[in-house]
């Protein structure tokens, strides 16, 4: 009996001796694993390498890349993709997809605007807008998990519905974001020029605490993104929520038979994803100071969010994924676009190169995945 159970599962784990020594965590195979293989064993491993290579390339070729000014441009640009990707990871691990985040992205700021304009305080307005997004996620999850419609179709319908609804209630016109106005004051500054003191008037921009917190501050969005990525990665790796998400995505019937509440798991992940979409919408509207009914922009940001998750190593087929990967995928997309702009690539070529780079990165990803399977699955 022991010899049956002890049959090595893969070539690199030699037939273990019976007895306590075989039970040490890790085991001999792990300690001998070289660094190269350990990096590859990480789900995010390949995209980390690819992103680093791209960053180093731009740093060497463009003096302006590795500057704090550039990071101030780059990081807020990356943040929305990272947050959307993080939410999307939870849905994609289930083997589903959520296209409606483009819709909540567009609608939430308008709900926020309507509420705040109607005299509701700012923060509660945001919260109510996000609760509306939760309702959207609930409906997505219901149609997918209970009615049994494919999530692609469900959320595509929801995307168009929400975008249309936004156009209706906004009348297609942009408005100023409540609480995001910039007050300009002037102060007198004394400069010393050639030993002569001169007094000059300088303009100073002030933004409110609310705006600073919700996307207006330089680092506000990236801090939101980092906090969300950390929290969601912890949720995915260290809680029952995450464990059951992987279980449903890996073997839905098996998970159901084991008693995992498949519908609940599916619905709450759709809620999570929808809220991520709404939050990014609000953050973006505060940072740009306008709420815009820009459906094309919403669709683009939706696909960047999904791309961040996929590039970061989350499988469209489900069962496997990482939130940190989505952040790195977002960084890859951001660095790529930023670097190309700094290199002076014409706007007409930008999308073309971005597309080719995504194809190249995913090819490398797939190759590394095969290497990993080869070394680790035997």
């Amino acid at each position, binding site marked *: *009996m022991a010899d*049956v159970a002890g049959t090595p*599962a893969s070539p690199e*784990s030699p037939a*273990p001796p019976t007895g306590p020594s075989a039970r040490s965590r890790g085991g001999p195979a792990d300690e001998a694993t070289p660094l190269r293989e350990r990096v590859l064993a990480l789900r995010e491993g390949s995209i980390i390498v690819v992103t680093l290579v791209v960053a180093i390339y731009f740093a060497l070729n463009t003096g302006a890349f590795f500057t704090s000014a550039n990071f101030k441009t780059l990081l807020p640009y990356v943040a929305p993709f990272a947050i959307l990707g993080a939410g999307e990871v939870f849905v994609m691990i289930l083997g589903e997809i959520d296209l409606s985040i483009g819709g909540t992205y567009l609608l939430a700021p308008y709900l926020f605007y309507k509420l705040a304009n109607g005299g509701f305080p700012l923060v509660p307005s945001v919260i109510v807008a996000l609760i509306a997004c939760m309702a959207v996620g609930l409906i997505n999850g219901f149609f997918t998990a209970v009615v049994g419609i494919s999530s692609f179709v469900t959320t595509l319908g929801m995307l168009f519905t929400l975008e249309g609804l936004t156009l209706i209630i906004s009348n297609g016109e942009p408005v100023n974001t409540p609480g995001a106005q910039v007050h300009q004051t002037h102060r007198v500054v004394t400069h010393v020029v050639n030993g002569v003191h001169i007094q000059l008037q300088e303009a100073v921009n002030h933004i409110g605490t609310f705006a600073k917190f919700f996307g207006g501050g330089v680092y506000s969005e990236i801090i939101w993104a980092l906090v969300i990525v950390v929290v969601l990665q912890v949720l995915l790796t260290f809680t029952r929520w995450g*464990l059951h998400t992987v279980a449903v995505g890996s073997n839905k019937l*098996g998970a159901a038979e084991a008693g995992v509440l498949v519908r609940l798991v599916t619905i709450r992940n759709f809620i999570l994803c929808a809220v991520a979409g709404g939050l990014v919408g609000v953050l973006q509207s505060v940072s740009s100071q306008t709420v815009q009914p820009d459906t094309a922009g919403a669709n683009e940001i939706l696909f960047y969010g999904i791309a961040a998750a996929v590039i970061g190593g989350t499988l469209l087929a489900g069962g496997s994924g990482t939130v940190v990967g989505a952040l790195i995928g977002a960084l890859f997309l951001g660095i790529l676009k930023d670097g190309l702009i700094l290199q002076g690539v014409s706007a007409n070529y930008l999308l073309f190169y971005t597309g080719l780079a995504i194809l190249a990165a995913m090819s490398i990803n797939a190759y590394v995945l095969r290497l990993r399977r080869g070394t680790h699955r035997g």
Partner: protein
Amino acid sequence: MADQAPAPAKIVPPTSAPDDVLRVEHISKRFGPVTALRDVNLHLRKGEVLGLLGDNGAGKSTLIKILSGFQKQDGGQMWLHGQPYEPKSVDDARAKGIDTVYQDLALIDELSVYHNLFLRREKVHRPFPFLANREMKLEARKALDEIGINIPRIDVAVARLSGGQRQAIAVARTVNSASDIILLDEPLAAMGAKEGSMILDLVARLKAEGRVSIIMILHNYVHVLEACDRVSMIQDGAIALDKPTAETSVEELTDIVVNEYRRARAATHEESA
């Protein structure tokens, strides 16, 4: 022995005993035009291993799914420890002490051995409900040792284990829970002789302990006679035979199946004629 209304011919009424942990009467189940279970009567005594036999499509798996709360019967009643038993879900059935090892194992390939062992019953820390992985690993190791399953590493994904190891883990999962009735749906399917004997050893050990009662779907009559106290055979959605294994033989069981096969052949010929 039989204490109820006369059943239609060919259907064996349930033998009842005071120490029945589970009784099933007149269970029926249809899927659209297909009748999976016509009228099933069954009982299980404490500490007993009951072998469930039957042709493909006879309704064995459907019966298991009803017992485990995964599906609901159309007609008939069940009693658990003398109380009416109407499981609302798999969770509900498990809470009442009935746990199942399904044919497709219900193992999650992407998850580790110990996470699979604790799936749905995960241990978490307090006050922040993070997974208590170290605790689960230790307990998983202990549980596997106790029932004599040797899995070298419990932190690898179950995708990397052999069929026998996977089956053993699936069995260990139910044993590890507080269940006192375990349903095994073809535990020896797609398994070599060596791995199969490992599972039968495991069942024998559980039987010797006497804590749990087991219903096991099997195909091999030799296994049934070796591992089970009693055998029930489902034919055509009803129990056609119910005997202690000591009172039956491979020959008798084979005869029943051969006769059924002949009848089916004859019926097919009539239809085509």
